């Protein structure tokens, strides 16, 4: 680690000058300047696809910039690859962790930072070092655990440990809290503050304005590949930041009338699910959703929500064992031997959590995607063949109603932006007027304008007397849309709340698996996310 550039007195830890990067036709970063002073926590915010991750990946040597200059500690440096960045004291925790799933924690930590050609000495040293780091920074993990057996929160700790093990001075965290419970996020922030106080420099990418306000010293805002502002956190406000992010004033309070619930549409009793690997994913779920109401399911990702949606959508994971009872409009649904097609025919619409992997075929054109899942509907058939004219007409109409841009049904799904992709999926499912709409992470990766639109459509469906099951990891979204909120933890419903009575702290406890009634140790300030911005 001697290659680290000499710090010029008082020079910023990081200085970026005129960084540009294009991926084919996409200009991800345009002429970006950024200064991060030493010993500070610097926030970066911006809509999806604004280029935050790209910029940080360039700093970390993962991508090479097309143009621009990087100075570390005042000295110019050419970062060829991550090795150079690591030598320069930069560590990065990626949005998607870069861990080897079937390696142990220890092996992951030493990967690329081994001491010699043989593993044994490296492993021994790393074990000791991890123990030290763990006690110093409250980063306990079992060094011999397999990554695939660890929770996301622990996996993130491993990523941070990896950076610290490499003696990083500059730590980049890309959306670290997306997968954490409020308590875990709080713990993370304590660690980050500790690191800053030690003199380390931290860059934090997040979508949550609350976190920016809570922990950062400075904040930079990116929009469409450009750096639009860099300000002191103390001199700005969430609403100003939101405005900078989208380039216009946002009004995100969802206007809705009180719900008028009717007859039960979905009744779930004692639903259990053991997956092919023998892990119990659902441990007895009881749910009711009535016509004309939205039931929001809050919870940290990975607590069984995905499995619940898949089972209700008719396609439980292969090899899973199921138990319990599901009734739709009073009629019992088979747990197995059915498929997603049958569910659709029974009146269940489903916007899946991951539009790119499930909801769309990325290589199909938009019009083909608008028929996806409904491709055997009678109106789309023409004898033995598909009635392409009918499908195209249907698609064009939906694309227009949902303001999908560009309004070109021939374009492949992969060529639409994330928000517009999501609009295609939502249009397809909502326009069929299902009696029950399952909707997972409806606005993940969607810009604020489109969020507004999608939220309105969900409420409109509710007001038309349909039942909606909303799964989201965004508490703000849950709070804004739901008529009732259920919190899931470890395959169970921890409790139900009404949105106007629920506090984030209360929900946070439930999400962390703490039984209601236990006094919340860590009070979390009220929501300040987009939904709270007036």
């Amino acid at each position: 680690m001697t290659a680290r550039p000499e710090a010029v007195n008082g020079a910023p830890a990081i200085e970026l000058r005129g960084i540009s990067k294009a991926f084919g036709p996409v200009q991800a970063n345009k002429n970006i300047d950024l200064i991060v002073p030493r010993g500070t926590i610097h926030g970066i915010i911006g809509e999806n696809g604004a280029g935050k991750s790209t910029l940080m990946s360039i700093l970390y040597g993962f991508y090479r910039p097309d143009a621009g200059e990087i100075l570390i500690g005042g000295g110019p440096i050419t970062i060829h690859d991550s090795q150079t960045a690591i030598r320069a004291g930069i560590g990065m925790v990626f949005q998607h962790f870069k861990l080897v799933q079937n390696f142990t924690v220890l092996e992951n930590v030493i990967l690329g930072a081994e001491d010699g050609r043989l593993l044994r000495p490296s492993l021994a040293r790393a074990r000791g070092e991890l123990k030290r780091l763990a006690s110093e920074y409250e980063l306990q993990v079992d060094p011999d655990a397999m990554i695939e057996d660890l929770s996301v929160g622990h996996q993130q700790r491993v990523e941070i440990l990896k950076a610290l093990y490499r003696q990083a001075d500059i730590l980049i965290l890309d959306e670290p809290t997306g997968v954490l419970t409020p308590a875990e996020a709080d713990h993370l922030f304590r660690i980050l503050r500790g690191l800053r106080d030690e003199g380390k420099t931290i860059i934090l990418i997040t979508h949550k304005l609350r976190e920016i306000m809570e922990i950062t010293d400075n904040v930079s805002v990116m929009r469409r590949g450009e750096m639009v502002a860099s300000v002191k956190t103390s001199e700005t406000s969430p609403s100003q930041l939101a405005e900078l992010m989208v380039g216009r004033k946002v009004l995100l309070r969802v206007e809705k009338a009180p719900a008028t619930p009717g007859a039960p549409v979905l009744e779930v009793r004692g639903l259990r699910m053991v997956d092919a690997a023998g892990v119990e994913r659902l441990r007895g779920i009881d749910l009711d959703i009535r016509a004309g109401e939205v039931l929001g399911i809050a919870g940290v990702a990975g607590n069984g929500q995905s499995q619940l949606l898949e089972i209700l959508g008719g396609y439980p994971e292969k090899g899973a064992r199921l138990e319990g009872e599901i009734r739709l409009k009073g009629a019992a649904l088979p747990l197995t031997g059915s498929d997603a097609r049958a569910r659709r025919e029974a009146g269940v619409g489903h916007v899946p959590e991951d539009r790119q992997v499930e909801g769309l075929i990325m290589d199909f054109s938009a019009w083909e995607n608008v028929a996806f899942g409904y491709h055997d509907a009678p109106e789309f058939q023409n004898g033995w063949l598909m009635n392409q004219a009918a499908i195209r007409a249907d698609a064009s109409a939906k694309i227009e109603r949902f303001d999908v841009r560009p309004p070109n049904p021939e374009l492949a799904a992969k060529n639409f932006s994330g928000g517009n992709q999501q609009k295609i999926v939502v249009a397809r499912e909502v326009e069929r007027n299902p009696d029950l709409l399952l909707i997972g992470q409806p606005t993940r990766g969607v810009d604020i304008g489109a969020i507004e639109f999608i939220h309105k459509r969900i409420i409109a469906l509710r007001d038309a007397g349909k039942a909606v099951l909303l799964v989201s990891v965004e508490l703000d979204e849950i709070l804004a849309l739901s008529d009732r909120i259920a919190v899931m933890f470890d395959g169970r419903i921890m409790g139900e709340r009404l949105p106007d009575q629920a506090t984030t702290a209360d929900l946070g406890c439930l999400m962390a698996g703490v039984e209601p009634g236990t006094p919340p140790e860590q009070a979390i300030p009220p929501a300040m996310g987009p939904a709270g911005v007036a």
Partner: protein
Amino acid sequence: MERMPKWADVILTPLISLVLAFAISALVILAIGESPTEALKVMVEGALGSSYGWGFTLYYATNFIFTGLAVTVAYHAGLFNIGGEGQAAMGGLGVALVLLAVPWPHWALALPAAMVGAAVFGALWALIPAWLQAKRGSHIVITTIMFNFIAAALLNYVLVNLLRPVGSMDPASARFPEAAHLPKLTDMALAFGMQWGKNTPANVTFFVAVIACLLVWLLIWRSRLGYEIRAFGKSERGAVYAGISPVRITVIAMLISGALAGLMAINNVMGEAERLVLNAVEGAGFIGIAVALMGRNHPFGVLLAALLFGFLYQGGGELALWTSVPRELIVVIQALVILFTGALDNMVRMPLERIFMALRKGRA
């Protein structure tokens, strides 16, 4: 936004790849001490220079259309069917059994029956690997390779012990009844008063193959099943979400694929040899891979690529017949075509994309 126009993707890229493959082939010819231009001349004259040459070129092309389509259909379902060789061999068995079991009065009756036999046997031979892939996750590439070997052994057993007429040396079946012989293209041309391709094996199956191209196109791009096959091929998770059963699609796509490979037997077994001989497929199943790759897995592209390989095969055969170039030259050319159009196509695509991006920027 696409990085380059569609025509560049579907026409220019394979064309340049092809040119590269041929350029290297020329070097190989030079290396073995022959003249590439002379070789090319012999090949073009032998394959395309006369109706006679065409008669062979079309015959080989017909084989390759079927095996190419077989690879194509499986490919759209995300399955790599290397088993065309075995499936086509089993298709031959189906044809032989059908034609030998019944004294067919006329070829027009025998042909559909033989097609059913060929398709059923080919499909059944693809069924087990498909089922294993769908149900047990056994890699279909490996199982289809194994099934090629098993088919060879099985066919050998059947020919030697069951179908071989007593006293015959040849591990081959008896001749099919005279009435079941398919009309050759020569005969058909004669009916129109034309002298064309005398004594060449090209036969009415060529038209069946062209129709098969059309049907496969309809299947893949116009039918609901094709929609489901393509969706499954692009994203299994997506297909499951949409209620498309992976098991069903895997099995059906492989059955169709196997049936198409099996149908090749109409051409070589029923149309040409008029009996079942050992190793009748002669590698056409593998050439189908190259044909499908070259043809960008589109039936029309497969048709063109099959013609190209028909030309290579006939031209290469002529070359080997009349010059001292060994026939393995065709194998090398075939390998290079597969390599450049299939595995190395990014080598051509990446610079092309850069050129088109630069052009676009220049215009903007």
